[in-house]
């Protein structure tokens, strides 16, 4: 903590000189208090809440993105017929037209059981999450357009498979702003980057403060957040001098919105340097909570720590928090053997369960929508003749919704007996986005941004709200 007294925060050099005399004399508020006050006085206008289009069911969104393509038929979309017809050749579309051929059907190696009062089928990959079946809405009818990781991941985040467009978190930030002036509205835990890299949380043509801020679990959570190691603690003094210089500069220029913006971003950054570390400082959490999330002492990296961090950010008013569970390597992309799904599921099952439970117990779940999703499903047939794994599948996949506004203990949409075709209530990626925006109080047809002479939307010209998932 810096012992220097306040050096005044009005604009003139006289103030600075006066303040510096004062400083030599000692006394006054701490500089930190002055800066915090300044941030709270609304200089941080870039990070401010904005009204929704209609009353919102959810104030916050937590996206858990399971990278690589979680199999629907091995997790939440039970297909006994697939077991029964295991090995039978089926017409299998390949990734590209020239790869279409006959492939044997593959029964799921996992055991399914009914759970909860709703009797929802869940495989033994998610034993803990299955216990919350009565809180979940299982959407079994998602579908996307391009069956490559990169394009499907981009689509799931931006609605576009090809040309980079703003991410859903950026759109929500644009629509609703944030409830904490010291933190961005959209923050993303990404130890490793997913397919399509940082494009998935990019604001693109939206104003840059809607960009998802990447948190890199580990020692250095947010780039440049830590003050540099210095021989002395001159940083605070220096910041105050910087403000003085900037104010002197602005005072001589009469149209200063840009200059004030730059100055306020310095103030917010100072606020972030103080607020963000506290958001991730879990020393105050009870042992029971830490155990529930599976967080060990000193852990700043595990999936459980990220889930706990997500809750703490939501508590602090961050609008959208995303957790990307693994990167573009070593993920749910189980081509060779579906058994490879087991460690991936084991890595997230307990923590996701604890996250939902914790949010509920703290009363946060009534304001928070949780979407657990992936980029596409996996084929009901094997990937290659001798494989025990499955290929990418765009025509049907499953995501889970829970929390604010969601019909608990329900399922939405159906696939045929093999899980290869949607037969009821299809939900295209655009519909999925429209539904999330709707729950956040945003009309996806009105959430537009004018760029290059046109109005753009997250849902392009598509999207229907799936009212069936809404309570």
């Amino acid at each position, binding site marked *: 903590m810096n012992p*220097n007294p306040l050096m005044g925060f009005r604009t003139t050099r006289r103030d600075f*000189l006066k303040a*510096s005399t004062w400083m030599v004399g000692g006394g006054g508020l701490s500089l930190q208090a002055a800066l915090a006050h300044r941030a709270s006085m609304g200089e941080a206008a*870039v990070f401010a809440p904005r009204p929704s289009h209609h009353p919102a069911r959810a104030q916050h969104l937590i996206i858990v993105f399971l990278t690589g393509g979680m199999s629907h038929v091995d997790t939440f979309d039970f297909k006994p017929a697939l077991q029964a017809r295991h090995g039978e050749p089926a017409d299998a579309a390949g990734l590209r037209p020239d790869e279409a051929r006959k492939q044997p059907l593959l029964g799921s190696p996992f055991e399914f059981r009914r759970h909860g009062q709703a009797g929802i089928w869940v495989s033994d990959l998610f034993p803990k999450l299955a216990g919350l079946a009565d809180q979940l809405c299982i959407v079994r*009818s998602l579908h996307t*357009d391009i069956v*490559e*990781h*990169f*394009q499907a991941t981009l689509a799931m985040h931006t609605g*576009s*498979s*090809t*040309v*980079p*467009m703003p991410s859903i978190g950026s759109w929500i930030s644009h629509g609703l702003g944030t409830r904490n002036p010291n933190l961005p509205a959209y923050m993303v835990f990404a130890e490793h*980057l997913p397919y399509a*890299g*940082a*494009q998935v949380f990019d604001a693109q*043509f939206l104003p840059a*403060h809607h960009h998802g801020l990447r948190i890199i679990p580990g020692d250095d959570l947010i*780039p*440049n*957040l830590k003050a*540099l190691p210095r021989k002395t*603690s*001159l940083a605070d*003094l*220096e910041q105050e001098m*910087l403000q*003085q210089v900037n104010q002197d*500069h*602005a005072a001589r*220029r*009469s*149209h200063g919105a*840009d200059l004030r913006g*730059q100055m306020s*971003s*310095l103030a*917010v*950054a*100072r606020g*972030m*340097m103080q607020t963000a570390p506290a958001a991730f400082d879990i020393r105050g959490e009870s042992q029971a909570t830490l155990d529930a999330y599976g967080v060990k002492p000193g852990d700043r990296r595990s999936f459980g720590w990220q889930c706990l961090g997500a809750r703490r950010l939501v508590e602090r008013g961050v609008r959208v928090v995303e957790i990307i569970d693994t990167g*573009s*390597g070593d993920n749910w992309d189980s081509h060779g053997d579906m058994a490879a799904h087991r460690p991936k599921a084991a890595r997230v099952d307990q923590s996701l369960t604890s996250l939902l439970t914790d949010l509920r117990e703290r009363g946060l779940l009534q304001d928070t929508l949780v979407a657990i999703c992936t980029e596409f499903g996996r084929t009901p047939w094997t990937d290659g003749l001798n494989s025990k794994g499955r290929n990418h599948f765009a*025509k049907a996949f499953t995501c889970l919704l829970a929390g604010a506004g969601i019909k608990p203990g329900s399922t939405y949409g159906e696939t045929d007996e093999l899980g290869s*075709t*949607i037969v009821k209530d299809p939900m*295209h990626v*655009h*519909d999925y986005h*429209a539904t999330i925006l709707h729950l956040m109080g945003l009309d996806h047809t009105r959430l*537009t941004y004018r760029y*290059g002479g046109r109005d753009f939307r997250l849902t*392009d010209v*598509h999207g*229907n709200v799936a009212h069936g998932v809404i309570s």
Partner: protein
Amino acid sequence: MSVSAPSNTHTPGSPSGPRRSSIHIALVWLLLSIGWMSANEPTPPRDPASWWAYQELQRPYPPEVKDRRWPRTDLDRFILSKLEALQLKPSAQASKDELLRRLHFDLIGLPPSLNEQKAFRADRSSNAFSNVVERLLASPHYGERWGRHWMDVVRYADTAGDNADYPVPESFRYRDYIIDAFNQDLPYDQFIVEQLAGDILTQEAPTVRRAERIVATGFLALSRRYATGPFELMHLTLEDAIDTTGRTFLGMTFKCARCHDHKSDPVTARDYYGLYGIFASTRFPYAGSEEFQSKSLPRTGFVPLAPPAEAEAALAANRQRLQELRTELARLDASKTAAESNSPARTSLDTRIQQLRLELKRRERSGTHPDAPAAYAVSEGKGEDHPLQKSGDPGQPGDKVPRCFPAFFSKSTPPPVLPTGSSGRLELARWITHPRNPLTGRTMVNRIWQGHFGHALAATPSNLGLSSEPPSHPELIDWLASEFIRSGWSIKHMHRLILHSATWQQTSGFKAQHQGSIKDPSNRWLWRQNRQRADAEAIRDSMLLMGRQLDLRRPGAHPFPPIEEWRWTQHDPFKAVYESNHRSVYLMRQRIQRHPYLALFDAPDANVSTDMRPVSSLPTQALYLMNHPFVQEQARLFADTLLAQTHLTEKERLAQGIESAWARPAKPHELKTASVFLRMCQKQAGAEGLASDESLREAWISWCRVLITSNPFLYID
């Protein structure tokens, strides 16, 4: 798609993939115009027959103005007449210091040195300003600045953009070509023809600018690649080629016409597929992608820079060497059994085999003669017409469309005659650069204006079509465009014209009571100059300059790993940041992973053509300025430079610091405040136990950090 959600049924297929394909811009506009979608501002229907940008280019007469004293050039009369109509007064001329700093950032992206400042202040002659303009236009750094503007538009990148983002080590040649072209003031029409069809020019005149003209087609070669195989989703790569061509040279967006006739602009799907045939008849290079690794597919289509005979000899030598390598490796492999394992003979044999295998891999994979320079460039393919794709879906071919240029804009230009077997690119380029093409000159002068004022006269420089906002001064654009063509398409001529105008030389500040701040707060009518924040490149370069670290030489190729080591996939894509003290225009730019610093400070995404960078002030930028070691290092070096001037007093050193960083003399109160600041820092550092010389140095470092992270450093008046 087996399932069609109700929401999709009213749309004729399209954007985000083979079925849905890219973005339905045109559809958005259709829905906007028929009221199915809400828009922020309803757009009245506009008539192509009377749209300003589509009219034949005339040279308007500069309007009469009441105030005869203010205009310095004819250009100023266009500005002043509108201001007078609005009863606005232009602002006074900026001070000499402001002008010099503005001019330096504007033309070369760097602040003036102490000597340059001194010389300009002392030069009272009438051509003092012109002399600086000429000095900067002749500087090699001019092309680095203005070439970078061009690179934004042509979505310059050092990687291909496929799912594994393969590097393109040859890409830098196109970068350097652009810089050279600006420095040489290559006539803009020639610049366009070389970028679209330089390879065809070399067939006509094999020895004239051969390498340059081949390299220039990097403009097309850099079209975005998709997915994992060679030329996968090629129709989207061609869409990028077509759309970027339209945006860059014509200020037109053609993309929408891929799926259906453009809903706002007079561009039909047939026009699109007329252009499609031209680019589909072009051979694109393949720089690698996941299947380079997984299926051992070599790079293809790179174009040797040497003349054909020489290149053929090199390639023949390469083929022969490949043959030798294979034979030799087979022989050595066979002899392995003879050599005793672990013997020195065996070890040296293994080493030899390893060496040869690497060489083989390098030669097989490079797709060109690895030792002879080649370019990421295009060449002629099979010249033929291609079918229209219904709803933009290559799986639904319609009738073949003869290769042609958008009909609406071809009324005043001669109809194309495509030589048999050729793609038609050269004819397309000649059509674009025809003096009667209404779009080409207007588009470029509007961009040049933007480079000098921060905002263009027509606000979206890559879209002058019916969906764009009408420009503030259409007559001025026309006058500039005629002047541009009359000058032989000289970009430097346009710079001189604009920089010498009273309009450009206005101060960016104003008195609060100026009626402009009420009547025109956004300064659309240019009653003052715009204050601009230095862009990402200028900020970094200036910081390096303050730390005396800026390496002004041209660095050449990037230090990519050798091709025999490439094994990137979408699961483990290419990702690198190469540290360098060269100017930022030379930093390696990827498509899928963005450069962390450049992305933070609003440099464009290299996947798409960018006509205007946003300017953001973000806390994450502030964090960089406060806490990144780069900034700290430049501040330290800057401080050491000032401290080393032992013949100067402290006050003189402070003054020099301000003058170096902010390019103007220090004001007395600034020196006084700075001196108090130094004392306070020293006192605190001393209290924390630092020796007095060390605490002095720390204080100076802090002062220099303030200098190079403050608004006087970051903003240009």
